[in-house]
């Protein structure tokens, strides 16, 4: 279940209109998307129905994945409420492959219950029939959970809709510049500022349990790494050495935080044990070594280094040892992130003046460019590896974009105002 995020306005209050929702727009669709109909859920609760439309949220989620083509509500010839109401012929005529129906009922202790089913229109087989208890404030979350369920049953991979994203937003210019660390639902709804500062905020990253965010804050004049519980707002300073304290990244078990520290004179990869408090320096080179990322098996740390002249991706064992170069294609490769399968690496890939998101298949050693912007950066995989969220620039300001991992579907998430950057997709929080 989700917990309410507690707002911690640390330094300044937030303008009320600064956090209007992110607008999502599919830039490029997928022709082979699966036709599905999510019938509006029957409202069977004694409590008046809130404006949140469950079926609409599920349809939007499935659409955003790029793998589904949901039927518009206006085109539905029937609105079956239960299994016996379904006339499969109607849905076959509409060329719908799958059908979702459901209702919202009163649960215990003031909770709701989502009761829903998924059918294969062609085989008339019931694929899912579930009951999901949901707290009154969590109706959107409940809808995302159903979308995850449907996605997993049809695609065979867990969905990533009931997740969150964190990002940094900057509003204002000059002395009015204000930085916010924002946590929102994966569809951009419910954005909440959890840190607000007139000094830069950077590099948010989720702990594997989805409870904490580590980030960089300049609130004390120099960069420092903080770790904050997103539910309680409690936080602690992890690193505030002389020089750069940057690029935090959690180990897969959550016990360590890798980072870039320049306390020795130039940025090196350092691993901090969150339990013992020990700092272990992994790299030793005059170059800039930064942006560490753990492999999902926890055995390697990938990082950016310009030791060969320009930034490229390298890796080193978690206990140190030989540094191995990973990328060779392109002038500039940085900010690597590794897919949950451990095989695909997404990065900011620069050639000349163009920076795009590229994915390196480490088994086939093939690099594919996925985005088409001029200054695309900060890729972050969805926890199921299906999509990559990244930052791009459009009309002189930062927006967030998402691309399916195969590059077939791209979408844009636009905040109503301000510069949005450095998205980080949360793990699945269950």
């Amino acid at each position, binding site marked *: 279940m989700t917990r309410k995020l507690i707002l911690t306005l640390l330094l300044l209050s937030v303008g009320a209109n600064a956090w209007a929702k992110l607008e999502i727009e599919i830039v490029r669709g997928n022709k082979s998307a699966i036709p599905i109909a999510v019938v509006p859920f029957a409202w069977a609760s004694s409590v008046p129905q809130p404006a949140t439309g469950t079926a609409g949220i599920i349809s939007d989620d499935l659409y955003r994945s790029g793998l589904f083509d949901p039927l518009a509500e206006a085109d539905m010839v029937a609105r079956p409420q239960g299994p016996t109401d379904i006339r499969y012929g109607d849905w076959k005529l509409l060329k719908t492959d799958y059908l979702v129906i459901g209702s919202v009922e009163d649960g215990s202790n003031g909770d709701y219950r989502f009761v829903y089913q998924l059918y294969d229109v062609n085989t008339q087989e019931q694929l899912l029939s579930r009951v999901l208890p949901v707290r009154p404030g969590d109706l959107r979350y409940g809808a995302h959970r159903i979308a995850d369920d449907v996605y997993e049953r049809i695609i065979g991979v867990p969905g990533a809709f009931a997740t969150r994203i964190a990002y940094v937003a900057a509003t204002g210019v000059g002395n009015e510049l204000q930085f916010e660390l924002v946590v929102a639902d994966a569809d951009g709804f419910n954005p909440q500022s959890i840190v607000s500062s007139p000094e830069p905020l950077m590099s948010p990253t989720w702990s594997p349990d989805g409870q904490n965010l580590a980030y960089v804050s300049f609130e004390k004049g120099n960069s420092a790494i903080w770790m904050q519980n997103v539910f309680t707002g409690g936080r602690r300073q992890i690193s505030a050495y002389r020089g*750069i304290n940057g690029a935090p990244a959690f180990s897969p078990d959550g016990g360590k935080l890798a980072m870039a520290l320049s306390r020795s004179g*130039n940025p090196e990869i350092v691993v901090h044990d969150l339990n013992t408090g020990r700092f272990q320096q992994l790299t030793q080179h005059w170059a800039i070594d930064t942006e560490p990322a753990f492999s999902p098996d926890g055995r390697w740390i990938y990082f950016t280094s310009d030791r060969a002249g320009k930034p490229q991706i390298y890796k080193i064992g978690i206990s140190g040892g030989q540094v191995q170069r990973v990328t060779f294609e392109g002038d500039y490769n940085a900010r690597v992130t590794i897919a949950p399968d451990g095989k695909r690496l997404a990065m900011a890939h620069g050639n000349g003046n163009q920076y795009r998101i590229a994915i390196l298949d480490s088994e086939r050693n093939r690099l594919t460019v996925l985005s088409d912007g001029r200054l695309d950066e900060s890729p972050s995989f969805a926890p199921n590896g299906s999509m990559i969220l990244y930052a791009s620039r459009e009309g002189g300001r930062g927006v967030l974009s998402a691309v399916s991992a195969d590059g077939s579907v791209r979408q844009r998430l636009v905040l109503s105002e301000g510069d949005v950057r450095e998205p980080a997709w949360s793990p699945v929080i269950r």
Partner: protein
Amino acid sequence: MKSASRLLLTALLAITLAACANQKKEPVEVDTPPVQDRTDTPEVVTQALDANDYANSENFDNPDSMLYRGRRVIYFDFDQSTVRSEFRPVLRANGEYLAAHSGAKVTLEGHADERGSREYNLGLGERRGNAVRQILLSHGASANQIEVVSYGEERPTCRESSESCWSQNRRVEIVFNSTN
């Protein structure tokens, strides 16, 4: 004596009368010279400010000096941290100032343009700050007078995606925290 003075007096009277008679004939043009302006001639003894005196904080406000506060931004080429020769005189001036004022302290704020990754740019901004630091040290500044802070690409002065804008953002700003 008495007779002599009387004689002189009589003579003077005669001249005056003659003059009066003259005045009546043709009036003299009265010349009125301007009152001398006394404010521009206070004889305060000063030497001209030596623009090359890099120990003198008055040169912070002297646009002719390399120590001028308006020159405290050092610009860099793309992905470079080498200080261009045009900025060396400014760094010499500031380095010598620091050498002459052991209590003076500066922060070197390193910045990068928006291209490339943010954390790498944090490293690049620091590298630029360190390059400036080395030059200040070479002119006699002490390590404890200089702090380097990198902001990477987080605090641009210009927000357009063009080279003219990027070149303004690739910089190190010398910020005096104390001038003593």
